[in-house]
């Protein structure tokens, strides 16, 4: 099969993930979009492995490592989201502005 088919799917999937990360407001939905981007990278690794006929199968092994790191990331990410929810009663990322120097929406100092 054509390699560019897999690479094109990967690029489009990554673009969808970028849109999701930037457009979503709910932290859980944001994590889902991050997962889409990680899967796009995985598809690239597997496709290049098959194309290159790698004797060590490094592409597929590293796809497995990406899955492991993604699992760790989701675990810690959800723990952080739950901690924020317990503290603030919200998971909307654009309401968490305390680290902003000057609030870009309200135009006031964040700690005022």
């Amino acid at each position: 099969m054509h390699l560019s088919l897999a690479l094109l799917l990967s690029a489009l999937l990554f673009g969808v993930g970028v849109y999701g990360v930037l457009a979503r407001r709910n932290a859980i939905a944001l994590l889902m979009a991050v997962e889409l981007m990680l899967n796009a990278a995985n598809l690239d690794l597997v496709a290049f492995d098959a194309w290159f006929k790698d004797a060590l199968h490094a592409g597929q092994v590293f796809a497995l490592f990406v899955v492991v790191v993604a699992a760790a990331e989701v675990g810690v990410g959800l723990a952080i989201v739950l901690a924020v929810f317990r503290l603030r009663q919200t998971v909307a990322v654009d309401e968490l502005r305390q680290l902003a120097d000057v609030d870009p929406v309200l135009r006031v100092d964040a700690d005022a």
Partner: protein
Amino acid sequence: MTLADDVFGLLGVVCLAAAVLVVTSRHVIHAALWLVVCFGALAGCYLVLTAELVAWVQVLIYIGAVVVLMLFGAMLTRAPVGAVQELDSGNRPVAAVAGVATAGVLGTLVVAAFRGAYVDIHHTQIGDGKVIGTSLFRFFVLPFEVASVLLLAALVGAIVLTKREV
């Protein structure tokens, strides 16, 4: 166009449509369920690309663990079950431009660079458990052990973060 191209194309369309629904759905729970469809189609793509073990790991870890974790997170943060408008922030047009630009640049780049590249899936070694396991434990033992330590650290970190103050 071979049979593999057709199957991959169909799975790709399903995967991409599900991915778009994941980032546009108004229900958090629906988005998580569309994520299952997307990951399942992607596992089929891995099977077409002869990556057997990666496909089953995808099903086990992503569909089995990550999506369930997402659903737990959505329920623990009392996500609204019905359709809500405020799931998206106000910067959707900017996000759409950024997403389309990223996909366009990456897509044109890879298509221009690998236009004639052809994956000979009938003469590649199938990446089943034996082959990948041999490679993993013969050549990638150190990264494997580091990954296990990383998982342990993530486990401890998640427990510490969610523990109520004592």
